């Protein structure tokens, strides 16, 4: 299948005119994008281009200075991050944010528990929460962690920790995935596995991928947005972006020989 010809699915997340100023600095400058179910939308750009800030605004970590965010057609700009998460917006972090002393299963279960919190049910042990356990096991299995469920997360390899980061995200049953550099620091084999996973996940999710590994991005992305200094300089299919003169000059040109 040629991803460029894939007809756009349902729009799950839409950002319009998103801007974020820190004092005089404009970190994100009037960025609009749509995330479709069934597509991987990559955002690329140099360090400091505003990619992580964009993810933070979409996921609700802090509000935009201007612009709106819509999830499933609903304006969620004023929603808190937990509320967005419960409504189907999942994110992973660039750094590992796993709970190192908890087992792999418990990391996933804790994330899944956000869907069936029942905090008042003090007499029920968390470990016996069936829906959370099922969601946790499924997320771990999908990300290839089924064999290490009982291992403390802190003892996993780096690649496995990145997988767990995704698994915790999946355990909350999101419809939209905002993935901040899931491939960072991964070896070739682990990268392949993660790309296969992304390809599988996009069938029923809308995925935003922020990534530095250009080979990976051009292999897996259906749409690419290129950011420089907070602003979008190009947007479109991988082919269109690759041949964009502005992108070549600003960003890709210097790299292409190296890959």
């Amino acid at each position: 299948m040629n991803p460029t010809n894939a007809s756009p699915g349902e729009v799950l997340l839409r950002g319009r005119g998103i801007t974020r100023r820190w004092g005089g600095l404009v970190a994100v400058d009037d960025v609009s994008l749509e995330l479709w179910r069934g597509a991987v939308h990559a955002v690329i750009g140099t360090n400091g281009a505003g990619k992580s800030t964009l993810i933070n605004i979409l996921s609700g970590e802090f509000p935009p200075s201007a612009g709106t965010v819509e999830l499933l057609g609903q304006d969620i700009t004023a929603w808190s991050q937990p509320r967005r998460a419960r409504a189907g917006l999942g994110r992973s972090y660039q750094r590992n944010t796993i709970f190192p002393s908890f087992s792999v299963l418990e990391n996933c279960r804790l994330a899944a528990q956000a869907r069936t919190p029942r905090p008042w049910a003090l007499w029920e042990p968390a470990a016996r929460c069936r829906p959370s356990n099922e969601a946790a096991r499924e997320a771990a299995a999908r990300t290839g962690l089924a064999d290490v469920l009982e291992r403390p997360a802190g003892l996993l390899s780096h690649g496995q920790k990145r997988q767990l980061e995704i698994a915790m995200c999946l355990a909350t049953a999101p419809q939209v995935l905002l993935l901040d550099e899931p491939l960072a620091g991964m070896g070739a084999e682990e990268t392949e596995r993660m790309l296969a996973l992304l390809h599988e996940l996009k069938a029923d999710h809308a995925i935003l991928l922020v990534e530095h590994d250009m080979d990976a991005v051009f292999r897996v992305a259906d749409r690419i947005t290129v950011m420089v200094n907070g602003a979008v300089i190009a947007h479109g299919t991988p082919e269109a972006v690759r041949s964009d003169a502005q992108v070549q000059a600003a960003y890709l040109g210097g790299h292409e020989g190296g890959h």
Partner: protein
Amino acid sequence: MSDTLHRPSAGQIGFVTAVFAALAAYPLVAGSYGLDLVAKIMIFAIFALSLELLVGGTGLVCFGHAAFFGIGAYAAVLLSPGYDAANLLWLLPACVAAAALYALAVGALSLRTKGVYFIMVTLAFAQMAYYVVHDTPLGGGTDGIYLNAKPVIPGVFELQGGVVMYGFAWVALLATFALLAVVSRSRFGRALAGIRVNEQRMRAAGFATYPYKLAAFTLSGAIAGLAGFLYAVKDGYVNPELMSWHLSGSVLIMIILGGLGHLRGALIGAFAYVLLQEFFKSEALFGNFARHWHLGMGLTIIASVALLPRGLVGIPAQLAARLAGRASRRAEATPGLKEPR
């Protein structure tokens, strides 16, 4: 760490059972002094457990916990009708509720801050409560107030006298320990543990963390109030020192000494702290130097924090690691088994 396998091990259950059995048997051999001392320790253990829920359980370092203890204590005296005995069945819940209410208000405001600011704000609210009882007619000033009649359950018992008071404190400690053990295994408790490790990640998963922290803070304040109530009834007397920052500091030291992150740590820490205090205060042992008991206490605490980073409860694990380390040093040819420091 205990987090990974939060099903308690046989050793842990055995230890806690042994402690409670020994405490239950103690009145058979103890004199009145010993009974009073251990009752006091059990009350401090309840207090320490309440703080452990916040510090070890949720990662919130509250430096004003004496306020809730003191409110429970003062409520016991102020709500008791003059020279008649109050009914325990409403007095106890009322005292706990008073402490919980203040905790709810303090928590609602202080939980909007983080880290060192949170420490300072909780301290400030505790100092406010301290000066209310210290400087207004309500609290009777530095002299404190006497509790003229101990609470009763009419026709059943009066909370008076060594053994009855001791027994009641024992039951309260057991109930508190059991409650917190159950809480720590529940979804609520696991969410608190998650918040302790990485609150941001919990929010990203969909947990509204503020209500969780506020609930923990209020529950903790309520239990501290229970401890304060027991303390006031045991001594029949309250004074502003019960709300002082010294006491807030002492209870923090108890849980650090015992080992953060474990209910057993709070239990052990309360015993260790009070017994160390008794030891350094003993004129029979130190003569005139006993007046300077703070010095011995301070040095001991510094030494224990330096040598026992995981607290008294971590000693077995530390010894095991050391033995394993020695074994691996002996087998020099095996790399990769280095002892973690």
